[in-house]
């Protein structure tokens, strides 16, 4: 079947190889007999809440992020509505920050956010840079790890009852202190992990595709047959070992 993907501001938010994540989603959907239809949503485009099964928001350099922040915030109600109606979403790094309530700079200025994720981000004085390893349990009883790379000055502070994406095994995570990384609301995932994230963590790509299919069909997320992923497993193993050896220390 057709999976409709809305890719927000690909011209502006593409700093950490976001197209790698899209390539993984497209290829793995195809191997399950689905077709990913990716629509670029730019500054002048309208976003309608029921037009997409999956939304993608990448990260940008500060300058590019500042150019789209207000436009994104204005699309906020459509994004929140899409997610509450069951659309899947992946937001990485800058996109993850901007989907929270807002970003407070060191000069006190506030960049408004979308208000999807229950968090706010505060600029820090040092950047948190390095390999990261997380442990996640998106489906109760199914534990997985995510290996990625983080590079952020912002400290993202989750609200007390917010659900993180995972527990930090090695690396900094949301704020370098809480021991948690990312955030999850329904079928929406936000994270600092790039690398890009999905090639070496294909299980998360499959989870997102299954959620998008569930949105498209209105039924339960399908369970996909396993694909041969030796190379991804090897890439994951090396990245996880990097996180152990040289990830950020809390």
């Amino acid at each position, binding site marked *: 079947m057709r999976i409709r993907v809305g890719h927000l501001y690909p*011209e502006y938010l*593409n*700093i*950490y*190889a976001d*197209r*790698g994540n899209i*390539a*993984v989603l497209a*290829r793995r959907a195809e191997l399950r007999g689905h077709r990913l239809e990716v629509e670029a949503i730019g500054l002048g485009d309208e976003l309608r809440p029921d037009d997409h099964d999956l939304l993608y928001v990448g990260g940008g*350099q*500060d*300058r*590019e992020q500042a*150019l789209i922040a207000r436009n994104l915030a204005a699309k906020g109600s459509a994004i929140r509505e899409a997610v509450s109606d069951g659309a899947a979403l992946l937001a990485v790094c800058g996109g993850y920050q901007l989907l929270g309530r807002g970003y407070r700079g060191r000069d006190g200025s506030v960049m408004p956010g979308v208000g999807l994720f229950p968090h706010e981000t505060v600029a820090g004085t040092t*950047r948190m*840079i*390095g*390999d990261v390893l997380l442990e996640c349990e998106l489906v109760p009883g199914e534990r997985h790890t995510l290996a990625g*790379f983080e*590079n952020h000055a912002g400290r993202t502070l989750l609200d007390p009852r917010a659900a993180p994406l995972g527990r930090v095994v090695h690396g900094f995570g949301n704020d370098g202190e809480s021991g948690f990384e990312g955030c999850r609301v329904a079928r929406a995932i936000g994270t600092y992990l*790039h*690398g*890009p994230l999905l*090639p*070496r963590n294909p299980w998360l790509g499959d989870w997102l595709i299954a959620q998008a299919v569930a949105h498209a069909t209105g039924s339960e997320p399908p369970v996909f047959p396993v694909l041969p992923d030796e*190379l*991804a497993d*090897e*890439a994951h*193993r*090396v*990245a996880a070992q*990097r996180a152990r050896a*040289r990830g950020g220390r809390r």
Partner: protein
Amino acid sequence: MERAAARAVGRLSRAAGRGGGTTLPGKLLWKLDPAAVDALAARLPLGVVLQSGTNGKTTTTAMAARILGAEHPLAWNRAGANLLSGIASALLAADGAKLGLFEVDEGALPEAMRRTRPRVVGLANLFRDQLDRYGELELVAERWRDAVAALPSETRLVLNADDPVVADLAGERVSVLRYGLDDRRHARPSLQHAADSKYCLRCGAPYVYEAAYVGHLGDYRCDACGHARPPLDVAAREIELHGLQSSRFTLGTVQGQIDVELALPGLYNVYNATAAGALSLAAGASLESVRAGLEGFSAAFGRFERIAVGSRTLVMLLIKNPAGANEALHTLETGVPPVLVVALNDAIADGRDVSWIWDVDFEPLLPHAQHVVATGERAAELGLRLLYGGLPRERLEVVPALERALDRGVELTEAGDELVVLPTYTAMLALRGILTERGLVRPYWEPR
């Protein structure tokens, strides 16, 4: 006293066979007495020339060395050791030098400018590069702006007018030489994926390109506020590219024009040659010595080196960031070799964050390559990149050990054919080390 000690360490390090000792004595001097760099630089009677930029530093500086070195003995960091310690080593090693010529790491440029008090500073381009090390492009640009503002007004700036951020560094300064390309036949149909600096510096609207040559470098203008590429003082025109072999162009300057035959392929090497020409003219070279120097130049180490391996030719092209890698790959477009070895390491000098390989446009190459050997510490990651880019699984071999991958590449290449090797920085050093051990290339610290 400290300088003598540092020189002795350099000799010892070479004698011990540890990588030529290009930075060890400099590191020592730098540690013992950082101000010695200032003093050594100040002793050069013809002063110091610096060259920086994300891509092309080593080649541009080596070309300028060929031009300027014909007339004056140089202190030059030929092996690409481009931090302050590398500059210190080059200064220590060059007894009797008249002119200092140094390529400088983008991050180290402000301090290098403060300490060496350059007569001429060449700035070529800013691309996203090793974000885990340098941070965002805007951060580097900001530090450059501050450093340039602190230069005395008589310092000559040689700026690439085709890069909006670099061209803008001129500000109100008078002593500026601007260079660029002027040949629309070589413009790319569109900006590359994930191009940098594509929004107007003044107002944020997207730039309109009359011609985009390499990444975001080109003839840009903003329709919203009128900001545009400034007029060129030194321009490469009538450019002809001859595949993987060579190129030729006309270099137009205020002193007249010259035709240049370059033994290097690719538009980015025309950029490097134009930059080297402009830099040398600003440093006082004649137009004729620019021509002679550029025509006598072959390759900087690891950058388009051709190495005979038995009856095969190994062509090594360093890849280190998306823009540079894309240009290296563009030169392969006409006549893709059937066998490629791509090597991805993730040491600090390569960038620990390997996500940049996804911004490299491998796609046009993959349908033509019969065999691709992915190697290096992050070989599996690279293999995934190539598979998702459309390379059929049966044409990909993942061989993490560099030496085995090199041998496998040679084995897959037919006699008389070319094997193209695309390594990141530390992988390039390691591969050159292997080739040196086998007696196929000269060690990099020895002059050609």
